[in-house]
């Protein structure tokens, strides 16, 4: 009973937020509401027994997406201008047509999904049944790095491609990303070093913990990479990491190392184990942990650089 009430309230809140994100007149309100929606999505994943997704959503929704959106909002909305200056929305009748079409889409999706019978033999049941063959105890990690490793490989390639694409169209260094820091001469808030001293070491620790725990409980390269990326965003915003126009050799290694390592081990699998992207007997856990470490960097660095709007970063502590 109370479970159902919780679910209904959560769904109501989520849909209410989504409506306001779309309908709100002030753009800043939409952005903040969208960030809040991300937090609510973490609770939704928690309710649906998907703690892995809740972890990823907490790191990405709370840290990365919000920072990206706020920086873009500031860049697209100069302070001098009043309000949005958004051109008027489509005429009312078009809006009505759009609403009807969306409604039809909703009905179609709902009808199709509710009509599906749960299949007797699903890939998920198969994955759970053969968990022992994967070398890890967490079913999600097993699917990501053993049974469907090719998806994960493609995903880091997509991330790398997004970074390359952003390099092609990026604005000049001084304007890209969050832009220049305010009051460079005026110093920074007194509490900022305290925040960094607590957040950065603990964040690195948590990322390592998530990476390690991916083998047997919720966690893994995705979540660890997202946490490190959020820390990178924090360091970039506070000027500890400065944007530079060139990618250093170490950064190049981190950007492509995960992909190269994953591909190499995958190809070696064709010779030493049964198939491409299969692991030799007894080595699965070690290799998966090795690949995950490479992946963590291959996820964290492009995301930080996408936020920073630069080709590279240099440490400039205080």
């Amino acid at each position: 009973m109370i479970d159902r009430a919780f679910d209904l309230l959560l769904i109501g809140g989520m849909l209410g937020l989504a409506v306001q994100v779309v309908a709100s007149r002030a753009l800043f309100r939409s952005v903040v509401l969208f960030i809040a929606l991300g937090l609510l999505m973490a609770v939704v994943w928690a309710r649906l027994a998907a703690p892995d997704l809740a972890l990823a959503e907490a790191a990405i929704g709370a840290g990365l997406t919000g920072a990206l959106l706020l920086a873009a909002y500031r860049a697209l909305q100069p302070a001098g201008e009043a309000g949005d200056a958004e051109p008027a929305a489509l005429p009312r009748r078009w809006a009505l047509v759009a609403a009807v079409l969306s409604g039809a889409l909703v009905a179609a999706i709902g009808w199709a999904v509710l009509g599906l019978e749960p299949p007797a033999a699903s890939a998920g049941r198969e994955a759970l049944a053969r968990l022992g063959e994967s070398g890890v105890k967490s079913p999600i990690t097993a699917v990501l790095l053993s049974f469907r490793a090719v998806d994960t490989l493609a995903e880091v390639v997509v991330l790398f491609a997004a970074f390359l694409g952003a390099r092609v169209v990026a604005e000049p260094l001084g304007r890209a990303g969050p832009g220049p820091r305010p009051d460079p001469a005026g110093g920074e808030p007194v509490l900022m070093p305290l925040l960094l001293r607590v957040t950065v070491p603990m964040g690195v620790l948590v990322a390592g913990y998530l990476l390690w725990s991916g083998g047997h409980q919720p966690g893994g390269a995705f979540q660890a990479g997202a946490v490190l990326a959020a820390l990178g965003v924090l360091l970039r915003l506070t000027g500890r990491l400065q944007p530079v126009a060139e990618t250093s050799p170490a950064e190049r290694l981190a950007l492509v190392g995960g992909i190269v390592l994953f591909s190499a081990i995958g190809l070696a699998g064709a010779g030493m184990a049964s198939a491409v992207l299969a692991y030799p007997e007894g080595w699965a856990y070690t290799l998966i942990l090795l690949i995950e470490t490479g992946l963590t960097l291959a996820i964290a660095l492009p995301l930080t650089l996408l936020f920073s709007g630069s080709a590279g970063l240099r440490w400039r502590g205080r």
Partner: protein
Amino acid sequence: MTVAEWLSVGALALGAAFFFTGTVGLLRFPGTFARLHALTKADNLGLGCVALGLALQADSAWVAAKLALVWGVALVAATVSAHLIARYTLRERGGTGRAPP
């Protein structure tokens, strides 16, 4: 129910009350600074009470330690966040010169 359970219930109820107070403050207080003051203090006390209540229900010391860690980090984050937002608001109103570091 045992004594620990009663204490836990009490702490959770107190936490919920603090959160409620924070929300009322956020909605009813005039001015950004008053709202900041209400929200930061009440919500973090509320989180502390909830964490305490849950720690009393916890089976292991590890769980209790993790709850304490969450609250500790939340206090640091909230302190700095409140400071940053107050400073930002001050600067918006009086120009850069008047914002103390």
